[in-house]
């Protein structure tokens, strides 16, 4: 059983997606429990796998008993074992959060398909994370993308159709580029297995085919992660999607796309390629700093809470890409820590936004004056996760930025390190804007009586509060996380 965990991690949820559909025909109330149980099981399996990997080293699973490079293999090493645990934890938090939010936002007859697609999205993302075959990666990417397009459009708002269509067009261009890149790699080496590619590619580093493949893959995945100039789909998609979907795609999907990009850049191509042969890291570093500043400035300019958080995501993706640009041990540790940290804090912030929409029916900042009186717990969670977003010690956001700055110093990039700090100040700008409106916005109102606190349902509050507290605890007990992050960063740089 334990030997087959990697494949069960993909096979069971696909079956359970079908089961949700069948059970939904019988009685709609069965959908949610099946979804919850599946994701909790997956999370348990991911933890078991992560512990196994940290104890025994990389797990390789040959699908159907076919040995690579002919067969497809699933590979779980310290890097994607860590990512796997993170994304399944957040998926579990989201699915707990989703139930009441879905009841409010999705039509009853659509809830069955909502949970089916939700399950397929998580499956696709898990598949992307653990596969060791580059074409398999593309297939899982498309499974998750198609599920995302439909999930974004599942809100009752007509605007979500337009947002979804725009994302579909850009996402398909991205997928097409990725497919072309894979084709070029296959032409150059004749293999699709990632480990095999890493062995065979150095011989043909000089070929134009390999450069083309790299550029297509880089641009394709940059669209998927919404790296700054290619982010145009993101604000609308995040804003118009139902709250639960926003939480899932802003945390889990965004992080898996980043993972895939890191995997391609560091495992398939190596640091030797991106630093020496095809020097692209300096350029990525420059664009990343532009992304940090531009995303934060655009976030400050927004009038809608969800849209503001969406632009903040663009800025935070810049931080993770910054680690890719610096590409040394400390910076990568910071980047991986930020993948975890940003997933936790942005998940929490979007959950707050979802709760506010649930209770207030709007996320326009101008309508939320004094919301802290009505929803004290939510606004406190926002303040805590927001502090982490700004990078106030001892939160996780501080730790990841600390490592990033150390990495930049080590690489001698003083100016870029300064940009990180400016980005933090700008983050303080947009986070404080909501805090001010929420806590002090009704300063001038005549009504001095304390409004009765009307929080959202408990099942939405619990995951939100848990994530907010995690922002703090992960920062305080950062050494525990570093146990998993350090070997992962070493692995990316080609070490043990």
């Amino acid at each position, binding site marked *: 059983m334990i030997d087959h965990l990697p494949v069960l991690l993909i096979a069971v949820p696909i079956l359970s997606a079908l089961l949700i559909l069948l059970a939904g025909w019988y009685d709609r109330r069965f959908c949610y429990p099946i979804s919850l149980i599946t994701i909790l099981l997956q999370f348990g399996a991911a933890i078991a796998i992560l512990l196994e990997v940290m104890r025994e080293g990389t797990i390789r699973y040959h699908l159907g008993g076919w040995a690579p490079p002919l067969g497809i293999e699933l590979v779980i090493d310290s890097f994607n074992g860590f990512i796997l645990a993170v994304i399944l934890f957040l998926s579990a938090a989201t699915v707990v959060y989703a139930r009441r939010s879905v009841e409010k936002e999705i039509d009853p007859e659509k809830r069955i398909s909502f949970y089916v697609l939700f399950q397929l999205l998580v499956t696709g993302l898990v598949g992307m994370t653990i596969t060791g075959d580059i074409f398999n990666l593309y297939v899982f990417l*498309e499974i998750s993308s*198609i599920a995302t397009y439909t999930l974004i459009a599942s809100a009752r708002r007509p605007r979500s*159709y337009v947002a979804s269509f725009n994302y579909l067009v850009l996402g*398909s261009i991205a997928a*097409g580029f990725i497919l072309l890149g894979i*084709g070029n790699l296959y032409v150059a080496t004749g293999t*699709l297995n990632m480990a095999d590619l890493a062995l065979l590619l150095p011989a043909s580093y000089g070929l134009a085919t390999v450069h083309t493949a790299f550029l297509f893959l880089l641009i394709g995945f940059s669209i998927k992660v919404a790296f700054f100039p290619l982010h145009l789909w993101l604000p609308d998609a995040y804003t118009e999607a139902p709250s639960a979907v926003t939480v899932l795609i802003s945390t889990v999907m965004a992080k898996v796309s980043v993972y895939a990009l890191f995997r391609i850049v560091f495992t398939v191509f190596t640091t030797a390629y991106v630093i020496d042969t095809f020097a692209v890291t300096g350029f990525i570093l420059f664009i990343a700093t532009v992304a940090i500043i531009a995303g934060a400035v655009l976030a400050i300019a927004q009038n809608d809470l969800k849209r503001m958080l969406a632009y903040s995501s663009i800025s935070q993706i810049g931080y993770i890409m910054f680690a890719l640009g610096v590409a040394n041990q400390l910076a990568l540790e910071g980047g991986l820590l930020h993948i975890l940290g940003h997933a936790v804090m942005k998940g929490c912030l979007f959950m707050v936004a979802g709760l506010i929409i649930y209770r207030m029916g709007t996320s326009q900042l101008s309508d939320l004056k004094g919301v802290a009186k009505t929803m004290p717990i939510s606004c406190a969670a926002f303040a805590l996760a927001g502090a982490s977003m700004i990078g106030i010690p001892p939160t996780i956001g501080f730790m990841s930025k600390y490592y990033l700055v150390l990495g930049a110093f080590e690489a001698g990039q003083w100016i870029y390190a300064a940009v990180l700090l400016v980005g933090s100040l700008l983050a303080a700008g947009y986070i404080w804007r909501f805090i001010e409106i929420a806590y002090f916005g009704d300063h001038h109102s005549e009504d001095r009586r304390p409004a009765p606190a009307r929080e959202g349902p408990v099942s939405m509050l619990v995951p939100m509060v848990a994530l907010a507290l995690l922002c703090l605890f992960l920062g305080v007990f950062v050494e525990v996380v570093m146990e998993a992050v350090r070997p992962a960063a070493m692995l990316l740089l080609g070490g043990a």
Partner: protein
Amino acid sequence: MIEAFYELFLSRYNYWMAIILMLIGLYALIAKQNLVKKLIGLNIFQTAIFLFYISFAEVQGGTAPIYLPEGVDALYVNPLPHVLILTAIVVGVSVTAVGLSLIVRIYEEYGVIDEDDLMQVVRGR
């Protein structure tokens, strides 16, 4: 001169065709106003990539890669890209289906399928 031309274009005309088709598709995706035409552009773009895969699998004089009895040798075409593209075609069909159904919904809601008009209507609401 002619040899360089041959080397660059004619001996690799299959790749040039894929590139031309891809650019036609991308042009339609970006420049066309009609959402359905955009989706057609997306299909052309994807098809170009499929053709690229199929054409690099080709071996001149190769046959179908079927199992032969012991001792019989045959030159055959690389079947792997064909299999990959079968998967990619399925993906392409699903994306097209989702895209078309979104267009239907957009048309039902707003009564337009032209991008400029759509942006005006969306902002107007």
